[in-house]
């Protein structure tokens, strides 16, 4: 059962991810992203991380993709980039070879260290499974003890995002500078 759920969810994630890159219509790409994010939520549920699964659906699949769609609609759906244009003809076949190679190496490495991982892993704590609030409690404990510094540094990232939005979207006065030759 566990394996079956995993395979289905993984297939959802991968199909969605490929869809995001290959779809020409940006709306379809954004909807493929929803598929990927749902697949990840299913994987969270399969690992008893119910709270994370809920957050995944509400924040990512819900709010963020809606924002994506807003932006796509505002910019216009019909503006498709011409992807057939290619300055260096070797790079796409080369990228394919390299990406298949890297994927192969990573899969081989994970398979090779499978035994060691099973030997070390303790699995899911059975006490956690019985307690309905355990997820949230563990998460908050991590955030406010071990990762409190990381949590605070994240706020600086948000500050940069705010400044960046202002810098990038401010109306510019004056002439554009001539291209240098």
């Amino acid at each position, binding site marked *: 059962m566990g394996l079956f759920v995993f395979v289905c969810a993984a297939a959802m994630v991968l199909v969605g991810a490929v869809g995001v890159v290959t779809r020409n219509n940006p709306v379809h790409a954004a909807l493929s992203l929803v598929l990927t994010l749902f697949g990840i939520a299913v994987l969270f549920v399969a690992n008893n991380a119910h709270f994370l699964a809920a957050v995944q659906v509400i924040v990512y699949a819900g709010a963020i993709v809606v924002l994506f769609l807003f932006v796509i609609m505002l910019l216009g759906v019909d503006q498709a980039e011409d992807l057939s244009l290619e300055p260096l003809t070797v790079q796409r076949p080369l990228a394919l070879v390299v990406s298949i190679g890297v994927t192969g*190496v990573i899969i081989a490495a994970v398979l090779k260290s499978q035994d060691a991982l099973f030997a*070390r892993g303790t699995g899911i704590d059975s006490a956690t499974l019985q307690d309905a609030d355990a997820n949230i409690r563990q998460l908050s404990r991590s955030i406010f003890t071990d990762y409190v510094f990381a949590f605070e540094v994240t706020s600086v990232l948000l500050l940069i995002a705010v400044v960046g939005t202002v810098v990038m979207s401010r109306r510019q006065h004056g002439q554009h500078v001539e291209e240098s030759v």
Partner: protein
Amino acid sequence: MNALLAETLVGPSIDWAGISPLLVLLGGSCLLLLVGSIFPRLPKGTYCAFTVLVSLTTAVAAMLQWRDVTKSGPRNLIADAVALDHFALLATIAISISIALVSLITDDYLRREDYDGPEMYALYLTAAIGGVVMASSNDLIVLFLGLETLSLSLYLLTASHRKRAESQEAGLKYFVLGGFSSAFFLYGIALTYGSTGSTNLSKISSALSGDSPFSQIDAMLLIGIGLMLVGLAFKVSAVPFHIWTPDVYEGAPSPVTAFMASAGKIAAFTALLRVLVVAFPTRIDDWRPAIWVLATLTVLAGSILAVMQTNVKRMLAFSSISHAGFLLVGVEAAGHAGDKDALAAVLTYLLLYAVLVIGSFAVVTVVAGKGDSHTTLDDFRGLGQRRPVMALALTVFLLAQAGMPATSGFIAKFGVIKAAAEVQSYSIAVIAMLGAVIAAFLYLRIMVSMWLADSTNDAELFVPVGAGIAIAFASVFTVAVGVYPGWLLDATRMVSDISISVIQAVDSTTDVPAG
């Protein structure tokens, strides 16, 4: 309900003094944004002066901590997430000096390009926060957040000239490629976490050492280290992950290029050393060959490609790649167990190179003129006639970058080559020196065009005050350190305490019973 009340959460103790440099930087950037939005018409140069003040305060805070660490030893703060040691503090001081110098150049640059507002200065400060966090992180998550803080600020700074298409293009290229490299780094963290059970550098180190069950060779861990190396090699622009560097350095506003080549490099290299030296000292034989290959490729490719350029900004971009190769030679030497001089050599190199490169780009900023458009080698023709003093300063910077004795560049290059020779890495030392010889040709080319060719442009070249101060400081520093290097070398020798704090942290974690 009772169970909930009974458990009160005890957070980790926070050593406010220990993170005071970060707090100064954060407070400074927030205040700058706040004041900038409330009072839009401030006298010219206020933002610049304020940023210089904040960065100098940061340096002073770091120096106070330096004294404290010398007295009571290095330690880890806030649930072992941050390390407080001489290594981190020296990086903090170097980054603060970089922001102060870069702000001085930026002031006149912004006026020339008809920009105002505090955004660029605020982004320098937030980028510095990222850099300091990277240099002092003792946890991979914290390191990643520092990396993102630095990178996001740099993407924005690169694209900040909204009226120049090259700047926008460079920003987008950097953003897309940087996003990929961050993803590699994050995947590396995930695989490392999977195979060691922790993201904390000290805990990873202890999990991999001795007879713990994690210490056997683990294929997944190797991939994790490899992917993290890819992410960091991109940030230090090591060949073959350097493709973005020339385009971004050329397209970015010149002061920002100076900032990327100084503070950006300091942060990326200190993070690289943290990960390799603190977390994986038991895996030296696995990562040292990779660094060896990166270092030789970077030194040679950087120097050879630099010679072929005709744009001074691109030349300096490739020269910064070749310097990154030299620094990697030092990182390779730092891999040898028990060798701590290499760490000092790398940090000295970073500090000296930061000042050199800011000086060089300050001259480029002044010569480039409005729109940053005059940066070809032809635009530097006859600079010796138009502005002899500035041409002399650039000559000093270029000679120092080439490694001339009696300049700081010699001290820097000598340090890493000596560190490599001391651990019997002779082949890499020879290759690095060969690279230095090739790169010397590039610096000569700029000098010849400055002094021996006649100027084609008779327009008066105005040297603004801020840039003048920065150039003067950088050139005096370059010569002074070149002639009297002793005090700096004595100070940097103390940075070898990087892994002492780790041992203490591991001791303190073993005291606590599991669970």
